[in-house]
């Protein structure tokens, strides 16, 4: 278990993405405390997905630095960043629909696990999300909610130091959301979680720390209660002009 420390596991400095003349992110200076659950929130178009895209390397940054565990990884391609201990689940479900559930998780685990321990590793990850009895099912045949859980199992199987979840509750039913929050809380302390989330109930229940993006810039960051009370955040969400 990683201890909860104040040393940031991930840091960005001046991270900027310009699409032509349009700034999706402008000089984002961001610090992610290790061992905690941080939620990245913000209104539609605030630049959340672009930001995590630049962190994971899926989207090339226009300028700025990404620092992971004290190392500048700005020049590394996405797969190499994942190799350093990041795991990422897509906003839109992305699994191997034609392969069985077990093989989906095995593919995630195999990069770091040898053959002798693979079965146990896969079993543990599936049990963790409650899909142990579906291991032989074809992944594409699972219900939508189960596919989202499968993605989380694929993330867990990589033993990530940083687990980035891009809108994991999108499209889930109420009951599934509750189960998901419990699962995320259960992971707290084991790994660092960066949660990009729209659902404010989930954010308030799950997160230890919140960062608010608005118009591509960090608007506020702090404890959930402080963020809830922050006038600038309220203004951004409610659309008042005095922010």
């Amino acid at each position, binding site marked *: 278990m990683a201890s909860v420390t104040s040393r940031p596991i991930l840091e960005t400095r001046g991270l900027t993405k310009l699409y032509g003349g349009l700034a999706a992110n402008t000089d984002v200076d961001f610090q992610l405390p290790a061992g905690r659950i941080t939620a990245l929130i913000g209104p539609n178009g605030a630049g959340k997905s672009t930001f995590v895209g630049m962190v994971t390397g899926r989207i090339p940054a226009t300028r700025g630095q990404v620092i992971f565990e004290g190392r500048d990884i700005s020049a590394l391609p*996405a797969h190499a960043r994942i190799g350093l201990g990041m795991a990422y689940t897509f906003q839109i479900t992305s699994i*191997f*629909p034609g392969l069985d559930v077990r093989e989906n998780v095995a593919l995630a685990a*195999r990069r770091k696990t040898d053959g002798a321990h693979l079965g146990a590793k896969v079993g543990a990850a599936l049990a963790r999300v409650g899909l142990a009895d579906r291991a032989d099912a074809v992944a594409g045949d699972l219900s939508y909610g189960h596919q989202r859980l499968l993605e989380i199992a694929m993330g867990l199987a990589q033993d990530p130091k940083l687990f980035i979840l891009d809108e994991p509750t999108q499209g889930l039913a109420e009951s599934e959301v509750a189960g998901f929050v419990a699962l995320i809380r259960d992971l707290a302390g084991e790994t660092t979680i960066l949660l990009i989330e729209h659902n404010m109930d989930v954010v308030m229940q799950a997160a230890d720390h919140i960062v608010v993006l608005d118009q591509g810039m960090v608007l506020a960051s702090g404890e959930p209660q402080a963020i809830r009370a922050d006038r600038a955040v309220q203004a951004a969400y409610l659309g008042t002009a005095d922010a």
Partner: protein
Amino acid sequence: MSERLRTDALHLGVIALLVVLFLTLPTYYAGNLSRIMVLAIYAIGYNLLFGYTGLLSLGHAMFFAAGMYGYGLTAQLAGWPALPAFALGILAGAALGLVVGALALRTAGVAFMIVTLMFAQSAYLTILYFGTWTRGDEGFVVPGVARVVLGIDLSGETERFVAALILFSLVLLVSGRLVRSRLGRTLVAIRENEERTRMLGYDATRLKLIAITVSAALSGLAGAAYALLFGYVGASFAAVPYSIFPLLWVLLGGAGTTVGPLIGVFFMFYLIDTASGITLAYMLIAGLALVLLTLFAPQGIAGLVRRRVRWLP
């Protein structure tokens, strides 16, 4: 483990069946078996890239030809003995695969198909251009001394069959292991969802380059074996039809299955053979059969079997 045993057992069974066919069939059909096995090696190489990695190349004839000319030209012009010339043929296929792959993999989808097609056309035209040495379309007959391996002349029917069987068996067994290996499973993952594979930390571009190189090496091996066993090298083997054939064989037999390539070559060979015995417009019959099979068995023959037998490798 039992999965691996089952795969090996199936492949050994296929090999045993080929031996039984050779011993029991009339000479004409038994003779065809050698040709079918060599072409099946080519199809297995193609299938690794198309069926397992999900990359559709329209230019594999250049790799087949690289093997054929790599072997044939060193034997013909430099007087190399069979084995070194044969090894050079495989190497030529692999090297061409590495170079063409590095360039073609900068594209994807339809662009990848067009780029591989263009490279193959360039290779074909290069062979014609250097006609002084390659004898162009007319081709040349491989010198007899380069067809003798370990004192055995491979131009005899039985010797040829045994040589083809050994090569095919090796390729089939190794490909069975390969597709079940960590590399093979990751190639399947790339076929299924490349972006997800990349975001699981795999260097998809590098893995695809490996797949092309291995696929090209197997195609080169098939090309060299064809020249070695049948004694002829010609530019027609570098032309467009020889890029399309492996695609057809693999589609018919079952893409992404280890036995599909052999089944596809077998089926196509006897489809054309039978149809040409009935009418001069045999391609019309062959075409119709292909259309029907694609309509009713889009997964190919082995793909149909896999619906019932899910473990089929």
